[in-house]
């Protein structure tokens, strides 16, 4: 066992437990759709789709801001990784969230290295791609159902 989520289980409770455990290992998926299922329990399927679509719509701006923050570093970068960690975690991109949170924590003592930042950008890119696929599949399912 790597973590505890208190019952009743909520999306963020589970995400926190997952976050707190050290085992967001390389074998875990980039997109954890379980988080989205739990979010749907909180705010409904449509609400979850809206949140995912907003995340996707914001993704180019998020990436751009993050890239620029990687150059200027300091407080701007801290703010971006913090925002990204919470937004990514909310939509099930747990590896992206973890990478952002790791950088945020590391920045308490030192500037992150270029490899870490490159990894975060790569994880964000693959996360956005998988989330877009998920959204398209949901959309098709909805269309098929109607």
């Amino acid at each position, binding site marked *: 066992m790597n973590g505890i989520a208190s019952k009743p289980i909520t*999306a963020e409770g589970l995400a926190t437990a997952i976050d707190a455990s050290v085992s967001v290992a390389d074998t875990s998926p980039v997109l954890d759709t379980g988080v989205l299922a739990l979010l749907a329990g*909180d*705010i409904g399927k449509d609400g979850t789709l809206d949140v995912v679509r*907003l995340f996707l719509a914001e993704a180019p701006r998020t990436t751009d801001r993050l890239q620029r923050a990687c150059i200027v570093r300091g407080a701007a970068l801290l703010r971006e990784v913090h925002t990204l960690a919470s937004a990514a975690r*909310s939509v099930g991109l747990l590896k992206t969230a973890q990478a952002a949170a790791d950088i945020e924590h590391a920045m308490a003592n030192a500037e992150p290295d270029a490899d870490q930042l490159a990894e975060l950008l790569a994880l964000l890119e693959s996360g956005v791609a998988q989330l877009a696929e998920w959204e398209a599949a949901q959309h098709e399912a909805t269309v098929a159902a109607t």
Partner: protein
Amino acid sequence: MVRFIGSSCLSPILARRFGGWHLDTQLGSARRLLVVDDEPVQCLIVTRAMSAAGFDADSATSLEEAAGRISTAAYDVIVLDLSLGGREGISLLRQIAACPSDPVVILMSRLDERVRAASIRYAVALGLRVAGALAKPVGPSALRSLLDQPPPQRPRSRRVAAVIPTAAELAEAIDTRHIVAAFQPKVSLAGRHLVGFEALARWHHPPHGPVPPDLFVPLAEQNGLIIPLTRMILEDALAACVRWRDAHPDCSVAVNISPMVLANPALPEEIETLLMRHALPPAALIAEITETTVIANPLLAAEVLTRLRIKGIGLSMDDFGTGYSSLLTLLRLPFTELKIDRSFIAACETDDEAWKIIRATISLARELGLSVVAEGIETEVAEDRLRSVGCQIGQGWRFGRAMSERTLYDWLAHRTKATA
């Protein structure tokens, strides 16, 4: 009433008293809620979650948008991100305070708990009803559990100043000495003799009249003005103490020491120099520390306070029972006095549980060799009860309000005449 999720600091007395908060039944119609957060994904999640919980929820992702919405719609609840592009989130609190709909406010911040606590105090001082402060990211269940609590009461000091002061006005008031020290007596409950005074900052704003300290002290803390303010009060207090010690040689003066002041490693030497300049023994001064002050910066605070104590200055733990980790703080720091918070004293006549806590606190202080001060004594019954369980010192309107130094001498003369 103020509550943190994850690090609860809800007063146990008050927490026990309330039932659940069911606005549905209170208002009969959909409650209007505004979420103000510049992080769009978080903003949407919170907005949707609140819609699902039965709120008519709006959102705003910028200060301007929020200001516009607040001015045109009457909200029952406003969920506000304090970090909205720097400090601006906090500036919105003034506008919310002016809302006729008197909305309940829930604060969110990615900053640490100390900042959240200071923001709550500021919002409460503005007269707002604050339900709590949540660490970001805020999840739907954390918000819902906050809304499951009873609605917060209006702060006791709703006598909000006609004009809410700005930091610049505060700085000027310190410079021009429109803020002065007032002194509230502390008396022994056994013999009713005077043991000292607590120095309290009082601001008389020329056109607008008195500004409540619960409004300007948090403002001073947020703007670094607490350092010159404390220095000024300390100077006034020691100068006054010299004068009244002519007739009352054992009287001390207590001065509140704030977080940022305590973070100055040179503080013990500065205070020692001040005492020497006034030819006062160290025991004439008591530094009053609130528990949150100590906890905010534990290592440095421990060092500074221990050095103050080594020099012979008294250390008092203010507002005992309202913070968190107070017992741990008592263990770690060389306090000489413990002040039981006024909320316990106010409840002691009607709430058996409060009374049990008071008795246990007095017993604890006795075990630790600390003197005990009961703050906010207003009635004879409370005074008698506290005396009967061995509380040594009392402070409150029953004995005397905070007064100017000149009034203080009249008060002393009157007492002398009365006991003669």
